[in-house]
Protein backbone atom coordinates (compact mmCIF):
# COMPACT_ATOMS: atom_id res chain seq x y z
CA UNK A 1 0.00 0.00 0.00
CA UNK A 2 1.41 3.38 -1.01
CA UNK A 3 0.79 6.18 1.42
CA UNK A 4 1.23 9.94 1.26
CA UNK A 5 1.51 11.74 4.60
CA UNK A 6 0.92 15.49 4.66
CA UNK A 7 2.97 17.29 7.28
CA UNK A 8 3.31 20.89 8.41
CA UNK A 9 6.21 22.90 9.75
CA UNK A 10 4.84 25.04 12.59
CA UNK A 11 6.13 27.55 15.14
CA UNK A 12 6.98 25.76 18.39
CA UNK A 13 3.98 25.88 20.73
CA UNK A 14 6.37 26.23 23.67
CA UNK A 15 7.75 29.49 22.25
CA UNK A 16 6.08 32.91 22.22
CA UNK A 17 4.05 32.58 19.04
CA UNK A 18 2.78 35.75 17.39
CA UNK A 19 1.67 37.39 14.15
CA UNK A 20 3.54 39.58 11.64
CA UNK A 21 2.34 43.12 12.28
CA UNK A 22 2.82 44.01 8.58
CA UNK A 23 0.29 41.57 7.11
CA UNK A 24 -1.43 39.74 10.04
CA UNK A 25 0.05 36.36 9.03
CA UNK A 26 1.64 33.86 11.40
CA UNK A 27 5.21 34.83 12.29
CA UNK A 28 7.27 31.89 11.02
CA UNK A 29 10.61 33.69 10.76
CA UNK A 30 11.28 34.79 14.33
CA UNK A 31 9.95 31.76 16.18
CA UNK A 32 11.70 28.40 16.06
CA UNK A 33 9.75 25.83 14.11
CA UNK A 34 9.44 22.08 13.94
CA UNK A 35 7.34 19.24 12.54
CA UNK A 36 3.84 19.72 14.01
CA UNK A 37 3.63 17.32 16.93
CA UNK A 38 0.27 15.99 15.75
CA UNK A 39 1.77 15.06 12.37
CA UNK A 40 4.22 12.66 14.04
CA UNK A 41 1.26 10.37 14.74
CA UNK A 42 0.37 10.40 11.04
CA UNK A 43 3.94 9.53 10.01
CA UNK A 44 4.10 6.75 12.62
CA UNK A 45 0.78 5.24 11.52
CA UNK A 46 1.83 5.24 7.85
CA UNK A 47 5.16 3.59 8.71
CA UNK A 48 3.41 0.89 10.75
CA UNK A 49 1.07 0.05 7.86
CA UNK A 50 3.87 -0.17 5.30
CA UNK A 51 6.16 -2.12 7.64
CA UNK A 52 3.40 -4.69 8.19
CA UNK A 53 2.89 -5.07 4.43
CA UNK A 54 4.52 -3.40 1.50
CA UNK A 55 4.64 -0.10 -0.35
CA UNK A 56 6.25 3.21 0.44
CA UNK A 57 5.60 6.34 2.43
CA UNK A 58 5.98 9.74 0.76
CA UNK A 59 5.91 12.86 2.91
CA UNK A 60 4.69 16.12 1.43
CA UNK A 61 4.82 19.60 2.91
CA UNK A 62 3.92 23.09 1.71
CA UNK A 63 5.99 25.82 3.30
CA UNK A 64 9.02 28.10 3.23
CA UNK A 65 12.69 26.97 3.16
CA UNK A 66 12.75 26.02 6.84
CA UNK A 67 9.85 23.60 6.30
CA UNK A 68 12.43 21.14 4.94
CA UNK A 69 13.08 20.37 8.66
CA UNK A 70 9.61 18.82 8.89
CA UNK A 71 10.37 16.53 5.94
CA UNK A 72 13.78 15.68 7.35
CA UNK A 73 12.26 14.57 10.66
CA UNK A 74 9.73 12.34 8.88
CA UNK A 75 12.48 10.80 6.72
CA UNK A 76 14.54 10.17 9.87
CA UNK A 77 11.59 8.37 11.39
CA UNK A 78 11.54 6.12 8.32
CA UNK A 79 9.53 7.66 5.47
CA UNK A 80 10.96 6.80 2.03
CA UNK A 81 10.93 10.11 0.21
CA UNK A 82 9.82 13.71 0.49
CA UNK A 83 8.20 16.42 -1.57
CA UNK A 84 8.60 20.07 -0.57
CA UNK A 85 6.35 22.59 -2.32
CA UNK A 86 8.04 25.93 -1.80
CA UNK A 87 7.08 29.14 -3.56
CA UNK A 88 7.11 32.71 -2.25
CA UNK A 89 3.65 33.24 -3.74
CA UNK A 90 2.19 30.73 -1.27
CA UNK A 91 2.91 32.98 1.76
CA UNK A 92 -0.30 33.87 3.59
CA UNK A 93 -2.43 31.14 1.98
CA UNK A 94 -5.51 30.08 3.92
CA UNK A 95 -6.88 26.56 4.38
CA UNK A 96 -8.68 26.59 1.02
CA UNK A 97 -5.52 27.49 -0.89
CA UNK A 98 -3.31 25.14 1.14
CA UNK A 99 -5.63 22.25 0.34
CA UNK A 100 -5.44 23.18 -3.35
CA UNK A 101 -1.63 23.08 -3.39
CA UNK A 102 -1.54 19.79 -1.45
CA UNK A 103 -4.10 18.22 -3.76
CA UNK A 104 -2.12 19.14 -6.88
CA UNK A 105 1.10 17.88 -5.28
CA UNK A 106 -0.52 14.54 -4.47
CA UNK A 107 -1.87 14.22 -8.01
CA UNK A 108 1.65 14.84 -9.35
CA UNK A 109 3.13 12.25 -6.96
CA UNK A 110 0.46 9.83 -8.19
CA UNK A 111 -2.73 9.11 -6.25
CA UNK A 112 -1.78 6.74 -3.41
CA UNK A 113 -4.01 4.15 -1.75
CA UNK A 114 -4.10 6.20 1.41
CA UNK A 115 -3.48 9.81 2.42
CA UNK A 116 -2.76 10.19 6.14
CA UNK A 117 -2.69 13.48 8.06
CA UNK A 118 -2.66 14.66 11.65
CA UNK A 119 -5.97 15.76 13.18
CA UNK A 120 -5.04 19.46 12.95
CA UNK A 121 -1.94 21.64 12.86
CA UNK A 122 -0.74 22.98 16.19
CA UNK A 123 -0.59 26.55 14.83
CA UNK A 124 -3.77 27.21 12.83
CA UNK A 125 -5.66 24.39 14.64
CA UNK A 126 -8.69 24.59 12.33
CA UNK A 127 -8.43 20.91 11.40
CA UNK A 128 -10.20 21.44 8.07
CA UNK A 129 -7.38 20.94 5.55
CA UNK A 130 -7.67 17.10 5.64
CA UNK A 131 -11.36 17.24 4.71
CA UNK A 132 -10.81 19.93 2.07
CA UNK A 133 -8.03 17.85 0.58
CA UNK A 134 -10.28 14.78 0.40
CA UNK A 135 -12.96 16.90 -1.28
CA UNK A 136 -10.47 18.10 -3.90
CA UNK A 137 -9.14 14.59 -4.48
CA UNK A 138 -12.70 13.24 -4.73
CA UNK A 139 -12.15 10.59 -2.06
CA UNK A 140 -13.87 9.75 1.25
CA UNK A 141 -12.34 11.18 4.43
CA UNK A 142 -12.41 9.54 7.82
CA UNK A 143 -11.17 11.98 10.43
CA UNK A 144 -10.06 11.71 14.06
CA UNK A 145 -9.07 8.06 13.85
CA UNK A 146 -8.04 6.55 17.18
CA UNK A 147 -7.45 3.16 15.55
CA UNK A 148 -6.82 2.29 11.91
CA UNK A 149 -6.96 -1.16 10.33
CA UNK A 150 -6.18 -1.76 6.69
CA UNK A 151 -7.80 -4.62 4.80
CA UNK A 152 -7.59 -5.51 1.10
CA UNK A 153 -10.02 -3.03 -0.35
CA UNK A 154 -10.52 -0.54 2.40
CA UNK A 155 -9.88 0.77 5.87
CA UNK A 156 -11.68 0.42 9.15
CA UNK A 157 -11.36 3.21 11.65
CA UNK A 158 -12.42 3.65 15.26
CA UNK A 159 -13.49 7.17 16.09
CA UNK A 160 -14.25 8.09 19.69
CA UNK A 161 -17.02 10.66 19.46
CA UNK A 162 -18.83 12.43 22.28
CA UNK A 163 -21.99 10.36 22.04
CA UNK A 164 -20.58 7.06 20.82
CA UNK A 165 -17.49 5.19 19.79
CA UNK A 166 -18.02 4.51 16.10
CA UNK A 167 -16.46 2.10 13.62
CA UNK A 168 -16.27 3.61 10.15
CA UNK A 169 -15.43 1.69 6.99
CA UNK A 170 -14.22 3.37 3.83
CA UNK A 171 -13.03 2.13 0.48
CA UNK A 172 -9.57 3.09 -0.78
CA UNK A 173 -8.31 5.41 -2.01
CA UNK A 174 -9.29 7.56 0.93
CA UNK A 175 -7.93 10.05 3.44
CA UNK A 176 -7.60 9.35 7.15
CA UNK A 177 -6.70 11.93 9.81
CA UNK A 178 -5.39 10.50 13.06
CA UNK A 179 -5.51 11.68 16.68
CA UNK A 180 -2.76 11.61 19.27
CA UNK A 181 -4.44 8.53 20.76
CA UNK A 182 -3.62 6.23 17.85
CA UNK A 183 0.02 5.35 18.54
CA UNK A 184 3.26 6.37 20.20
CA UNK A 185 5.49 8.02 17.56
CA UNK A 186 9.04 6.62 17.41
CA UNK A 187 12.16 8.69 17.92
CA UNK A 188 14.52 8.67 14.94
CA UNK A 189 17.31 6.13 15.49
CA UNK A 190 20.93 6.93 14.67
CA UNK A 191 20.59 4.61 11.69
CA UNK A 192 17.44 6.43 10.64
CA UNK A 193 19.15 9.81 10.90
CA UNK A 194 22.05 8.62 8.73
CA UNK A 195 19.75 6.94 6.18
CA UNK A 196 17.59 10.07 5.86
CA UNK A 197 20.52 11.99 4.37
CA UNK A 198 20.40 9.79 1.27
CA UNK A 199 16.63 9.83 0.77
CA UNK A 200 15.27 11.81 -2.19
CA UNK A 201 13.42 15.10 -1.58
CA UNK A 202 11.78 16.77 -4.58
CA UNK A 203 11.54 20.58 -4.62
CA UNK A 204 8.47 21.82 -6.47
CA UNK A 205 7.14 25.31 -7.21
CA UNK A 206 3.60 26.34 -8.12
CA UNK A 207 4.54 26.16 -11.79
CA UNK A 208 5.57 22.52 -11.37
CA UNK A 209 2.02 21.83 -10.17
CA UNK A 210 0.34 23.78 -12.97
CA UNK A 211 -0.89 26.36 -10.46
CA UNK A 212 -0.81 30.11 -10.81
CA UNK A 213 0.14 32.68 -8.17
CA UNK A 214 -3.35 34.18 -8.49
CA UNK A 215 -4.86 31.01 -6.97
CA UNK A 216 -2.93 31.17 -3.69
CA UNK A 217 -1.28 33.54 -1.23
CA UNK A 218 -2.38 36.30 1.08
CA UNK A 219 -3.82 38.66 -1.55
CA UNK A 220 -5.98 35.90 -3.04
CA UNK A 221 -7.09 34.22 0.18
CA UNK A 222 -10.77 33.44 0.73
CA UNK A 223 -10.54 34.87 4.26
CA UNK A 224 -8.62 37.79 5.78
CA UNK A 225 -7.42 38.46 9.30
CA UNK A 226 -8.45 42.07 9.94
CA UNK A 227 -6.75 42.50 13.30
CA UNK A 228 -5.11 40.62 16.12
CA UNK A 229 -4.49 41.52 19.73
CA UNK A 230 -2.69 39.76 22.54
CA UNK A 231 -5.03 38.59 25.27
CA UNK A 232 -4.55 41.00 28.17
CA UNK A 233 -2.77 39.31 31.08
CA UNK A 234 -5.24 38.10 33.68
CA UNK A 235 -5.45 40.18 36.82
CA UNK A 236 -3.51 38.65 39.68
CA UNK A 237 -5.85 36.41 41.63
CA UNK A 238 -6.14 35.56 45.29
CA UNK A 239 -4.10 32.53 46.31
CA UNK A 240 -4.57 30.96 49.74
CA UNK A 241 -2.72 28.14 51.44
CA UNK A 242 -4.94 25.36 52.74
CA UNK A 243 -4.72 25.22 56.52
CA UNK A 244 -7.80 23.14 56.96
CA UNK A 245 -9.98 25.98 55.71
CA UNK A 246 -9.12 25.88 51.97
CA UNK A 247 -12.39 24.20 51.00
CA UNK A 248 -14.47 26.71 52.95
CA UNK A 249 -12.53 29.64 51.48
CA UNK A 250 -13.06 28.22 47.98
CA UNK A 251 -16.80 27.90 48.61
CA UNK A 252 -16.76 31.48 49.94
CA UNK A 253 -15.20 32.71 46.70
CA UNK A 254 -17.78 30.81 44.63
CA UNK A 255 -20.57 32.29 46.70
CA UNK A 256 -19.15 35.82 46.36
CA UNK A 257 -19.10 35.34 42.55
CA UNK A 258 -22.67 33.98 42.67
CA UNK A 259 -21.80 30.49 41.42
CA UNK A 260 -23.55 29.05 44.46
Amino acid sequence: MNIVVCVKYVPDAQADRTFNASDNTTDRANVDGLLSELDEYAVEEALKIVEAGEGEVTVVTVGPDQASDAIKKALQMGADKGVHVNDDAIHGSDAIATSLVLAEAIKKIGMPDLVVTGMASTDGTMGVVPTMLAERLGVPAVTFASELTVSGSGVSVRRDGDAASVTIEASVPCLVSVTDQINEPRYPSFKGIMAAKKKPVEQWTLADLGLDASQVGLANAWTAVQSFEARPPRAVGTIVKDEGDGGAKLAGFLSERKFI
Partner: protein
Amino acid sequence: MAEVLVLVDHVDGTCRKTTSELLTIARRLGEPSAVFVGAGYDTAAPTLAAFGAEKVYRADSDALTAYLVVPQAELLAQLVERVQPAAVLIASSAEGKEVAARLAVKVGSGLITDAVDVQSDGNGGVVTTQTAFAGGYTVRATVTKGVPVIAVKPNSAPPEQVSGAAAVEAVDYTPSALAQGARIAASTPRARTGRPELTEAAIVVSGGRGTGGDFSKVEAFADSLGAAVGASRAAVDAGWYPHTSQVGQTGKQVSPQLYVACGISGAIQHRAGMQTSKTIVAINKDDEAPIFELVDFGVVGDLFAVLPAATDAVQASKG
Protein backbone atom coordinates in the same frame (compact mmCIF):
# COMPACT_ATOMS: atom_id res chain seq x y z
CA MET B 1 -33.57 40.44 3.37
CA ALA B 2 -31.18 37.64 2.43
CA GLU B 3 -31.59 34.26 4.03
CA VAL B 4 -28.98 32.87 6.42
CA LEU B 5 -28.75 29.08 6.41
CA VAL B 6 -28.35 27.38 9.80
CA LEU B 7 -27.55 23.66 9.82
CA VAL B 8 -29.55 22.28 12.74
CA ASP B 9 -27.36 20.44 15.26
CA HIS B 10 -29.56 17.77 16.79
CA VAL B 11 -29.79 14.19 18.01
CA ASP B 12 -32.99 12.54 16.73
CA GLY B 13 -34.76 15.89 16.76
CA THR B 14 -33.54 17.11 20.14
CA CYS B 15 -31.71 20.32 19.30
CA ARG B 16 -28.36 21.02 20.87
CA LYS B 17 -28.09 24.42 22.53
CA THR B 18 -25.88 25.58 19.64
CA THR B 19 -28.90 25.49 17.34
CA SER B 20 -30.72 28.25 19.26
CA GLU B 21 -27.43 30.18 19.48
CA LEU B 22 -26.88 29.91 15.71
CA LEU B 23 -30.45 31.02 14.98
CA THR B 24 -29.93 34.02 17.28
CA ILE B 25 -26.69 34.93 15.46
CA ALA B 26 -28.35 34.41 12.06
CA ARG B 27 -30.83 37.20 12.82
CA ARG B 28 -27.93 39.68 12.97
CA LEU B 29 -27.06 38.84 9.38
CA GLY B 30 -30.42 38.29 7.70
CA GLU B 31 -33.45 36.03 7.85
CA PRO B 32 -32.78 32.66 9.51
CA SER B 33 -33.56 29.52 7.51
CA ALA B 34 -32.98 26.26 9.36
CA VAL B 35 -31.72 23.24 7.44
CA PHE B 36 -32.97 20.10 9.13
CA VAL B 37 -31.45 16.78 8.15
CA GLY B 38 -32.57 13.35 9.37
CA ALA B 39 -35.32 12.01 11.59
CA GLY B 40 -37.17 13.62 14.51
CA TYR B 41 -38.39 16.83 12.88
CA ASP B 42 -41.56 17.02 14.96
CA THR B 43 -39.46 17.19 18.12
CA ALA B 44 -37.26 19.96 16.70
CA ALA B 45 -39.98 22.10 15.09
CA PRO B 46 -41.08 24.07 18.21
CA THR B 47 -37.45 25.00 19.02
CA LEU B 48 -36.76 26.19 15.48
CA ALA B 49 -39.90 28.35 15.48
CA ALA B 50 -39.22 29.70 18.98
CA PHE B 51 -35.77 30.98 18.00
CA GLY B 52 -36.87 32.73 14.85
CA ALA B 53 -36.48 30.34 11.91
CA GLU B 54 -38.63 31.82 9.14
CA LYS B 55 -38.08 28.84 6.84
CA VAL B 56 -37.07 25.26 7.37
CA TYR B 57 -35.49 23.25 4.58
CA ARG B 58 -36.13 19.68 5.51
CA ALA B 59 -34.48 16.63 4.02
CA ASP B 60 -35.06 13.16 5.33
CA SER B 61 -33.21 10.48 3.45
CA ASP B 62 -31.55 7.37 4.78
CA ALA B 63 -28.37 8.45 3.01
CA LEU B 64 -28.21 11.57 5.16
CA THR B 65 -27.90 9.60 8.35
CA ALA B 66 -26.29 6.33 7.22
CA TYR B 67 -23.24 8.03 5.73
CA LEU B 68 -20.93 10.63 7.09
CA VAL B 69 -20.39 14.27 6.33
CA VAL B 70 -20.58 14.30 2.53
CA PRO B 71 -24.39 14.07 2.14
CA GLN B 72 -24.93 17.06 4.44
CA ALA B 73 -22.32 19.07 2.53
CA GLU B 74 -23.90 18.15 -0.81
CA LEU B 75 -27.35 19.14 0.43
CA LEU B 76 -26.08 22.49 1.74
CA ALA B 77 -24.19 23.16 -1.50
CA GLN B 78 -27.42 22.56 -3.43
CA LEU B 79 -29.22 25.07 -1.18
CA VAL B 80 -26.43 27.66 -1.30
CA GLU B 81 -26.47 27.68 -5.08
CA ARG B 82 -30.24 28.05 -5.18
CA VAL B 83 -30.84 30.48 -2.30
CA GLN B 84 -27.62 32.55 -2.42
CA PRO B 85 -27.72 33.14 1.35
CA ALA B 86 -25.87 35.91 3.20
CA ALA B 87 -24.00 33.24 5.17
CA VAL B 88 -24.08 29.61 6.27
CA LEU B 89 -23.74 28.92 10.01
CA ILE B 90 -22.74 25.49 11.28
CA ALA B 91 -21.82 24.29 14.78
CA SER B 92 -18.03 24.14 15.21
CA SER B 93 -18.00 20.50 16.29
CA ALA B 94 -15.73 17.90 14.70
CA GLU B 95 -18.50 16.85 12.32
CA GLY B 96 -19.74 20.40 11.75
CA LYS B 97 -16.26 21.57 10.74
CA GLU B 98 -16.02 18.73 8.24
CA VAL B 99 -19.35 19.59 6.67
CA ALA B 100 -18.22 23.22 6.53
CA ALA B 101 -14.88 22.28 4.95
CA ARG B 102 -16.45 20.23 2.15
CA LEU B 103 -19.12 22.86 1.58
CA ALA B 104 -16.58 25.69 1.31
CA VAL B 105 -14.58 23.85 -1.36
CA LYS B 106 -17.72 22.84 -3.27
CA VAL B 107 -19.16 26.34 -3.53
CA GLY B 108 -15.85 28.26 -3.66
CA SER B 109 -16.35 30.03 -0.34
CA GLY B 110 -14.08 31.21 2.39
CA LEU B 111 -14.37 29.30 5.67
CA ILE B 112 -13.87 30.43 9.25
CA THR B 113 -14.03 27.89 12.08
CA ASP B 114 -14.11 28.14 15.88
CA ALA B 115 -15.78 31.58 15.81
CA VAL B 116 -16.70 32.85 19.29
CA ASP B 117 -18.54 35.88 17.93
CA VAL B 118 -20.15 36.69 14.58
CA GLN B 119 -21.40 40.16 13.67
CA SER B 120 -22.57 41.95 10.54
CA ASP B 121 -20.03 44.40 9.09
CA GLY B 122 -22.94 46.66 8.08
CA ASN B 123 -22.31 46.10 4.36
CA GLY B 124 -23.71 42.62 3.91
CA GLY B 125 -20.49 41.00 5.10
CA VAL B 126 -19.61 39.16 8.26
CA VAL B 127 -16.94 39.82 10.90
CA THR B 128 -15.93 36.96 13.16
CA THR B 129 -13.85 36.67 16.34
CA GLN B 130 -11.62 33.71 17.14
CA THR B 131 -8.79 33.00 19.54
CA ALA B 132 -5.35 31.96 18.30
CA PHE B 133 -2.15 30.43 19.68
CA ALA B 134 -3.57 28.64 22.69
CA GLY B 135 -5.92 31.51 23.53
CA GLY B 136 -3.02 33.97 23.67
CA TYR B 137 -4.49 36.17 20.93
CA THR B 138 -7.89 37.38 19.80
CA VAL B 139 -8.28 37.62 16.03
CA ARG B 140 -10.95 39.35 13.93
CA ALA B 141 -11.47 37.99 10.45
CA THR B 142 -13.69 38.33 7.41
CA VAL B 143 -14.57 36.08 4.51
CA THR B 144 -13.49 37.79 1.31
CA LYS B 145 -14.75 35.36 -1.35
CA GLY B 146 -18.04 33.58 -1.85
CA VAL B 147 -20.89 33.02 0.62
CA PRO B 148 -19.29 33.10 4.10
CA VAL B 149 -19.29 29.66 5.72
CA ILE B 150 -18.82 30.06 9.48
CA ALA B 151 -18.43 27.30 12.05
CA VAL B 152 -19.43 28.75 15.42
CA LYS B 153 -18.43 27.43 18.85
CA PRO B 154 -20.97 26.73 21.60
CA ASN B 155 -21.76 29.59 24.04
CA SER B 156 -21.01 32.26 21.42
CA ALA B 157 -24.31 34.07 21.89
CA PRO B 158 -27.04 34.05 24.54
CA PRO B 159 -30.04 32.49 22.74
CA GLU B 160 -32.90 34.98 22.29
CA GLN B 161 -36.44 33.82 21.66
CA VAL B 162 -38.28 35.44 18.73
CA SER B 163 -41.06 33.55 17.09
CA GLY B 164 -40.55 32.62 13.45
CA ALA B 165 -42.90 31.22 10.81
CA ALA B 166 -40.80 28.05 10.39
CA ALA B 167 -42.47 27.38 7.01
CA VAL B 168 -41.36 23.93 5.94
CA GLU B 169 -40.06 23.17 2.47
CA ALA B 170 -39.16 19.59 1.69
CA VAL B 171 -35.88 19.28 -0.23
CA ASP B 172 -35.13 16.40 -2.58
CA TYR B 173 -31.67 15.02 -2.16
CA THR B 174 -29.90 12.18 -3.90
CA PRO B 175 -26.43 11.33 -2.62
CA SER B 176 -23.51 11.07 -5.04
CA ALA B 177 -21.37 7.94 -5.27
CA LEU B 178 -18.68 9.71 -3.20
CA ALA B 179 -21.19 10.35 -0.43
CA GLN B 180 -21.46 6.60 0.03
CA GLY B 181 -17.69 6.02 0.23
CA ALA B 182 -17.51 6.00 4.03
CA ARG B 183 -20.17 4.45 6.20
CA ILE B 184 -20.79 3.80 9.88
CA ALA B 185 -20.40 0.06 10.38
CA ALA B 186 -20.95 -0.07 14.13
CA SER B 187 -21.68 2.33 16.96
CA THR B 188 -21.25 1.82 20.67
CA PRO B 189 -23.01 4.55 22.64
CA ARG B 190 -21.13 6.00 25.58
CA ALA B 191 -22.50 5.42 29.03
CA ARG B 192 -24.45 8.53 30.01
CA THR B 193 -23.00 10.35 32.99
CA GLY B 194 -25.99 12.64 33.49
CA ARG B 195 -23.57 15.58 33.47
CA PRO B 196 -23.69 18.47 30.97
CA GLU B 197 -21.66 18.30 27.76
CA LEU B 198 -18.13 19.57 28.25
CA THR B 199 -18.17 22.24 25.53
CA GLU B 200 -21.63 23.54 26.48
CA ALA B 201 -21.36 23.51 30.27
CA ALA B 202 -21.46 26.73 32.30
CA ILE B 203 -19.10 25.17 34.88
CA VAL B 204 -16.29 22.67 34.23
CA VAL B 205 -14.31 20.88 36.94
CA SER B 206 -11.18 19.11 35.65
CA GLY B 207 -8.72 16.69 37.19
CA GLY B 208 -5.10 16.06 36.30
CA ARG B 209 -2.01 14.22 37.41
CA GLY B 210 -2.66 15.27 41.03
CA THR B 211 -5.70 13.01 41.23
CA GLY B 212 -3.42 10.00 41.02
CA GLY B 213 -6.19 8.35 39.01
CA ASP B 214 -8.94 8.84 41.61
CA PHE B 215 -11.53 11.19 40.09
CA SER B 216 -14.17 10.55 42.77
CA LYS B 217 -13.57 13.84 44.62
CA VAL B 218 -13.45 15.79 41.35
CA GLU B 219 -16.73 14.21 40.22
CA ALA B 220 -18.44 14.82 43.57
CA PHE B 221 -17.47 18.50 43.51
CA ALA B 222 -18.60 18.79 39.88
CA ASP B 223 -21.95 17.22 40.72
CA SER B 224 -22.50 19.61 43.63
CA LEU B 225 -22.15 22.48 41.12
CA GLY B 226 -24.00 20.79 38.24
CA ALA B 227 -20.76 20.93 36.29
CA ALA B 228 -19.18 18.90 33.48
CA VAL B 229 -16.02 16.91 34.28
CA GLY B 230 -12.85 17.39 32.25
CA ALA B 231 -9.36 15.92 32.39
CA SER B 232 -5.83 17.01 31.52
CA ARG B 233 -3.81 15.21 28.86
CA ALA B 234 -1.67 13.60 31.58
CA ALA B 235 -4.77 12.07 33.17
CA VAL B 236 -6.06 10.86 29.80
CA ASP B 237 -2.71 9.45 28.69
CA ALA B 238 -2.52 7.56 31.99
CA GLY B 239 -5.85 5.95 31.12
CA TRP B 240 -7.66 7.51 34.09
CA TYR B 241 -10.33 9.33 32.09
CA PRO B 242 -11.66 9.04 28.51
CA HIS B 243 -10.10 11.09 25.73
CA THR B 244 -13.49 12.65 24.95
CA SER B 245 -13.18 14.48 28.30
CA GLN B 246 -9.74 15.89 27.57
CA VAL B 247 -9.45 19.67 27.85
CA GLY B 248 -6.55 21.12 25.90
CA GLN B 249 -4.97 21.65 22.54
CA THR B 250 -5.60 18.09 21.38
CA GLY B 251 -8.89 17.74 23.20
CA LYS B 252 -11.79 20.09 23.80
CA GLN B 253 -11.49 23.85 23.97
CA VAL B 254 -13.88 25.08 26.63
CA SER B 255 -14.87 28.58 27.66
CA PRO B 256 -17.25 28.21 30.61
CA GLN B 257 -18.29 30.82 33.17
CA LEU B 258 -16.24 28.93 35.77
CA TYR B 259 -13.35 26.51 35.29
CA VAL B 260 -11.91 24.61 38.25
CA ALA B 261 -8.52 22.89 37.69
CA CYS B 262 -7.73 20.22 40.28
CA GLY B 263 -4.22 18.81 40.40
CA ILE B 264 -3.38 20.26 36.98
CA SER B 265 -0.06 22.08 36.57
CA GLY B 266 -1.22 24.21 33.64
CA ALA B 267 1.13 23.41 30.75
CA ILE B 268 0.55 25.25 27.44
CA GLN B 269 -1.21 22.11 26.14
CA HIS B 270 -3.84 22.50 28.84
CA ARG B 271 -4.04 26.30 28.79
CA ALA B 272 -4.94 26.12 25.09
CA GLY B 273 -8.16 24.43 26.08
CA MET B 274 -9.33 26.59 28.98
CA GLN B 275 -7.68 29.98 29.32
CA THR B 276 -10.61 31.85 27.76
CA SER B 277 -12.83 30.72 30.67
CA LYS B 278 -14.43 33.69 32.43
CA THR B 279 -13.45 32.73 35.99
CA ILE B 280 -10.63 30.30 36.77
CA VAL B 281 -10.01 28.47 40.04
CA ALA B 282 -7.18 26.03 40.77
CA ILE B 283 -6.25 23.62 43.52
CA ASN B 284 -2.69 22.34 43.45
CA LYS B 285 -0.12 21.15 45.99
CA ASP B 286 2.68 22.97 44.16
CA ASP B 287 2.53 26.71 44.81
CA GLU B 288 4.75 27.26 41.75
CA ALA B 289 2.45 25.46 39.31
CA PRO B 290 1.94 27.70 36.25
CA ILE B 291 -1.85 27.30 36.54
CA PHE B 292 -1.72 29.81 39.44
CA GLU B 293 -0.70 32.53 36.92
CA LEU B 294 -4.17 32.27 35.39
CA VAL B 295 -6.41 31.99 38.40
CA ASP B 296 -8.92 34.34 39.97
CA PHE B 297 -8.76 32.17 43.05
CA GLY B 298 -6.26 29.47 43.95
CA VAL B 299 -5.82 27.07 46.83
CA VAL B 300 -2.36 25.64 47.53
CA GLY B 301 -3.20 22.31 49.06
CA ASP B 302 -4.19 18.69 48.65
CA LEU B 303 -7.25 18.30 46.45
CA PHE B 304 -8.28 15.25 48.48
CA ALA B 305 -8.70 17.52 51.50
CA VAL B 306 -9.88 20.72 49.82
CA LEU B 307 -12.47 19.29 47.41
CA PRO B 308 -14.55 17.30 49.95
CA ALA B 309 -14.66 20.34 52.27
CA ALA B 310 -15.69 22.58 49.37
CA THR B 311 -18.30 20.04 48.23
CA ASP B 312 -19.80 19.97 51.74
CA ALA B 313 -19.86 23.78 51.84
CA VAL B 314 -21.60 23.95 48.44
CA GLN B 315 -24.17 21.37 49.54
CA ALA B 316 -24.74 23.24 52.82
CA SER B 317 -25.30 26.52 50.96
CA LYS B 318 -28.12 24.86 49.01
CA GLY B 319 -29.82 24.27 52.34
